[in-house]
């Protein structure tokens, strides 16, 4: 039995490996009349990043480039550096995508600068990079404003106890959203630290709890369970992304509290929009990673053609939606629709932020 | 003229929860004396040794070394004072060399940082030569056998100028030749004024080497006498508090020549064994002996399918048998009782009952499930039949003494209904009474029609209860005799002496 089984298992693994690599290499097939390759750093298997990559790919193809994806599924700093170096060695005309964290960003940007390869990253902005060589810029949402819009809506429409489910703390964005939200809701206290208890909206809202959901649905579920048990009269729940919101909603349904609690969220993911349509997400601020990716490639193309200067910060296009204006949301998967791609390609380039924070 | 007193144990007592391990124990050991310490398992020998070596302090009384009471209780202190212990399983560092182990803690260095290897080897070589120990200082310890490791431990003790050397069951892992060597070494040490505390179950050795004997029973000293004033039987009686039943079992004598052979080996060879030919019949107990490495254990392992055979034929219960592994051997009715119960034979955390039934789970399985009631019935039966001393059949087997663990192994064989049994060193490290019981059990197994092969380096022990004895030398069977037609000296000659010498 042993020898045959061993061969069988190796064969299965080899086939699976081949299938997997076959898929990814297919993504990098060179097209005819290519203007060169743009490298895309894909840091993580989440849908958000995948769709960002797909948007970039649509833009690249439309402009005549070929997009080569460098995967970093385990979100490992060393893999990111290796990816950047490989991209440079393989002759990338430009680099975009997502960096894993603040420390690797340094090395990645430095490597690109040394090789004179223009680089534009999504998220990870810091003013010190704007002056580095080859840095075309950064594209990301204005985290504070992004949260603020949601906070303002909440202050205007709801009263009672409020809880917040945050994403993974420590990267800056989760804290930024929370800070912006609390400011928008008029909360009195240290909104930068963002910890309860705080009184908001002229006393109409009490901020009582916050727990992290690590951007994940099962953890959002647990967080909602714990918070509704501790505060049975909870009225408002703000989730920093749609995955956690969906998880929280499932938990509230199981607890028969979904009618009592009003949820607001951020992201605009397809499953989040389902919630808006059904009414259990009252409102959310949305931003399409696909559009982000598309715009990033457009900007890089502009830089290569000397139409766009380097060293700028760009805010992503966001839309605050409720059930009423759902149609305004930019979907995450418009890239499957060539007409929509064409429409977005024709739109003007993003305008740089006049006074980026920190400068 | 009496030699100076080296060790004075005065009214020492030691209490553990539930048991008084030592009770008013007093003993005197002089320089240059070999003092034998005997007693049944659990009599307090190892506790006394631990008190002397500083592992734990006595609750009462005191211990004096050369007149100074020992007050600090740490093993390192004992070493500094010149007390050294060599245990049955010596604790050396396997991946360091002999020299590094011998000189441990006192390696010559350049400014305390870098080891002077050459110097270390030279010092070690001198030491070894002085005591006629044939070891290579640079050899890594994990490649040495148990006998050599013991020598390294002794060398280490000597290097630290031990004045009192405690030897605990030193010949357990030694064959006759190496045991003789050890006895010579002990003689040398005596002449140099080293005092030796010799703890052992082998009374003949104690009688041969010791000047004084102390007998412990239930934590108390029942006698301390010069060796000349006692004989072995008296000592055994003192150890047990009563007479040993029927003395030591006598050999049964030649078996009926027509008993059918249940196990036959013919021309069996492998890298160690050379053309082995032997057979064991129903109702026979055959002993196989020889020095370590002569092939005894290889025969056992090969029969059980644990080692490869390059040629030869084996017949089991009349049918051809090609060993493939323990499972197949057991299915064919052959069972091996391995040498070290805790390591090889028993699952320490499981209970007595569970260990016995593990060999035959289908036997207690009814309708796909284990019948715990049946298991308990089987366990109780064998605990009674073999007189296994345990508080309950649910006691984890690791809590039993060595002798009783051996009995649990035998119970396994019985539970299996095996027809052919191979026992490896069944009485090693087992006290006198348990040994006698094991002899009786083996004989009764044979009387029940089973074929039993006992592999042991202890010739004297074998001669007490086997029907035939086979001498192995260098992988060959050099003699196959009825027990009645040979004796210890003769067998020794065959296995190590000139009589059995092979080209």
């Amino acid at each position, binding site marked *: 039995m042993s020898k045959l089984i061993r061969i069988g298992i190796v064969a299965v693994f080899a086939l699976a490996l081949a299938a997997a690599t076959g898929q990814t290499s297919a993504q990098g097939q060179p097209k005819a009349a290519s203007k060169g390759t743009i490298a895309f750093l894909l840091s993580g298997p989440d849908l958000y990043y995948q769709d960002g990559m797909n948007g970039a790919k649509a833009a690249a193809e439309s402009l005549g480039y070929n997009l080569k994806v460098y995967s970093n599924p385990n979100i490992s700093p060393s893999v990111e550096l290796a990816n950047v170096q490989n991209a440079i060695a393989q002759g990338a005309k430009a680099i975009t995508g997502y960096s894993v964290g603040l420390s690797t960003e340094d090395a990645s940007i430095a490597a690109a600068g040394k090789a004179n390869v223009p680089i534009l990253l999504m998220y990870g902005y810091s003013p010190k990079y704007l002056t580095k060589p080859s840095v075309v810029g950064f594209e990301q949402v204005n985290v504070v404003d992004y949260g603020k819009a949601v906070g303002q809506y909440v202050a205007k429409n709801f009263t009672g106890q409020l809880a917040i489910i945050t994403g993974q703390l420590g990267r800056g964005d989760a804290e930024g959203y929370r800070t912006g939200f609390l400011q928008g809701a008029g909360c009195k206290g240290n909104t930068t630290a963002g910890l309860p208890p705080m009184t908001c909206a002229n006393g109409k809202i009490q901020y009582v709890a916050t727990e992290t959901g690590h951007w994940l649905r099962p953890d959002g579920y647990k967080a909602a369970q714990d918070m509704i048990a501790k505060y049975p009269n909870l009225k408002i729940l703000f989730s920093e992304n749609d995955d956690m919101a969906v998880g929280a909603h499932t938990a509230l349904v199981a607890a028969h509290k979904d009618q009592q609690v009003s949820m607001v969220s951020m992201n605009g993911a397809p499953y989040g929009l389902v919630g808006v349509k059904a009414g259990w997400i009252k409102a959310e601020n949305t931003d399409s990673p696909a559009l982000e990716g598309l715009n990033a490639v457009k900007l890089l193309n502009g830089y290569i053609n000397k139409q766009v200067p380097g060293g700028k910060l760009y805010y992503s296009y966001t839309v605050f939606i409720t059930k009423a204006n759902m149609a305004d949301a930019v979907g995450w998967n418009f890239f499957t629709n060539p007409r929509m791609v064409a429409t977005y390609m024709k739109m003007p380039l993003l305008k740089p932020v006049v006074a980026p924070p920190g400068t | 003229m009496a030699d100076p007193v080296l060790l004075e144990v005065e009214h020492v007592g030691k209490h553990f929860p539930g048991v008084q391990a030592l009770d008013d124990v007093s003993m005197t050991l002089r320089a240059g004396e070999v003092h034998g310490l005997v007693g049944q398992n659990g009599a307090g020998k190892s506790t006394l040794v631990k008190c002397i070596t500083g592992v734990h302090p006595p609750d009462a009384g005191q211990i004096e070394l050369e007149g100074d009471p020992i007050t600090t209780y740490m093993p390192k202190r004992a070493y500094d004072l010149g007390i050294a212990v060599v245990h049955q399983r010596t604790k050396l560092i396997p991946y360091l060399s002999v020299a590094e182990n011998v000189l441990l803690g006192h390696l010559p260095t350049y400014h305390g940082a870098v080891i002077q290897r050459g110097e270390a080897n030279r010092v070690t070589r001198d030491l070894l030569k002085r005591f006629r120990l044939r070891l290579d200082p640079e050899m890594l310890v994990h490649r040495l056998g148990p006998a050599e490791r013991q020598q390294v431990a002794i060398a280490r003790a000597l290097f630290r100028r031990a004045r009192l050397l405690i030897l605990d069951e030193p010949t357990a892992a030694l064959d006759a030749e190496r045991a003789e060597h050890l006895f010579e070494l002990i003689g040398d040490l005596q002449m140099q004024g080293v005092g030796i505390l010799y703890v052992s179950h082998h009374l003949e050795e104690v009688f041969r080497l010791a000047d004084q004997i102390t007998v412990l029973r239930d934590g108390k000293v029942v006698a301390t006498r010069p060796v000349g004033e006692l004989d072995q039987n008296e000592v055994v009686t003192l150890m047990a508090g009563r007479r040993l039943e029927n003395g030591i079992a006598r050999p049964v004598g030649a078996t009926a020549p027509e008993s059918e052979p249940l196990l036959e080996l013919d021309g069996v060879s492998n890298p160690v064994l050379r053309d082995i030919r032997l057979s064991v019949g129903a109702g026979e107990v055959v002993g196989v002996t020889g020095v370590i490495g002569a092939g005894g254990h290889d025969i056992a392992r090969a029969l059980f399918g644990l080692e490869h055979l390059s040629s030869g034929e084996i017949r089991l219960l009349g049918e051809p048998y090609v060993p493939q592994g323990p499972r197949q051997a057991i*299915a064919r009715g052959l069972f091996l009782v391995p040498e070290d119960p805790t390591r090889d034979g028993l699952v320490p955390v499981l209970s007595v009952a569970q260990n016995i039934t593990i060999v035959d789970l289908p036997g207690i399985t009814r309708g796909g499930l284990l019948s715990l009631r049946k298991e308990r019935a089987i366990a109780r039966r064998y605990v009674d039949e073999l007189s296994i001393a345990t508080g309950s059949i649910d006691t984890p087997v690791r809590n039993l003494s060595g002798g009783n663990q051996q009995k649990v192994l035998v119970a396994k064989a019985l539970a299996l209904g095996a027809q052919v049994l191979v026992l490896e060193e069944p009485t090693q490290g087992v006290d006198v009474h348990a040994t006698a019981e094991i002899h009786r059990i083996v*004989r*009764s197994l044979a009387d029940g029609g089973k074929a039993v092969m006992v592999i042991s380096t202890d010739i004297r022990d074998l001669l007490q209860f086997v029907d035939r004895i086979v001498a192995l030398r260098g992988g060959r069977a050099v003699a196959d005799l009825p027990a009645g037609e040979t004796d210890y000296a003769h067998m020794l000659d065959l296995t190590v002496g000139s009589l059995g010498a092979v080209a």
Partner: protein
Amino acid sequence: MATHTNVPLPARPPTEAPAPWSARLLGRLRHFMDIDVYAVWPLFVMVIIIAYTSTKSSTYLTVFNFENILSQVAPLGIVTMGQAILLISAGLDLSVGYNIALSSIVTGLLLEHGYSLWLAIGAGVLAAMAVGFTNGVLVAQNRAHPFIITLGMSIFLFGLDTQLTGGAPVNDMKGLYTAFGGNLANGFPFFGLPTVAIPLVIVVAFAYFFLRWTPLGRRAYAIGGNEEAAYLSGIPIKRTKILLYTLMGAIVGLTGMVLAGQINEASFNLAQNFELESIACAVIGGTALFGGRGGALRSLQGVALWGVVQNAIVFVGLSSNYQQMALGAIIVIAVMAQRPER
């Protein structure tokens, strides 16, 4: 059975006096309950924590909250039973997290494409069992430690999971959600008891029964306690290991169904960290890391403690970071409390 001697053994020397009936009763009780006094410390700690937390928050001691805890630990508890069985046999499975995800993804994708519920469940559980079987074969064949093998499998499954879904979760588990997403209807004796408790009870009972009463369970203890002795006693080591890992695969598959139904999602990150958490819970409960000791009930108390601690930290008002620290501390204490048995 053995035919015995017709020569009676001579009178044997008196054995030790049999232990007093109280000691024997205690021995039988310990054996039956598979618990000894030292191993019940998690329960004491739980009582203390519950008492303390109830003083900190008025909403803590409610049926609702404890049902929450139950629903939070139920999937983990199911998988911990399987992990305990493996640990007892001196093995372990680090591929649990992504294997749970795999079974949920297979089932979810089939449901999405309109296949029947039972077919989808069957396929999901089979997928997990195939992984378990592969683990078992690799562990049985190689001398390499199961740690390395199952870790490698975990990495492989991570890639497989993300490849199958492209990173996008399956958002509707249909029949599974109906089954496990909520509570038993009112009117039952157990109003509001989360439905995930049912599979938990079933699997715990199964694990207890399996370890106590089946030959395979007994062999697991033997192999874990002393593999060499088990081998020499005729136990088929390879075959037993393969069976145990395949059983683990089945338990993992079941966990996937339960968890996916509860959260109503199938995704690669459905059960991240479940492998370490299940090992930690089993260890806290007293199952030894090195094999041979442990049981279903005692591993369950590890899971219970885990759930109580996490929940208590929220109610006491500490930040989530303390949850991580507390859990880590418990694991260290639990391992230190395991007395070395050699």
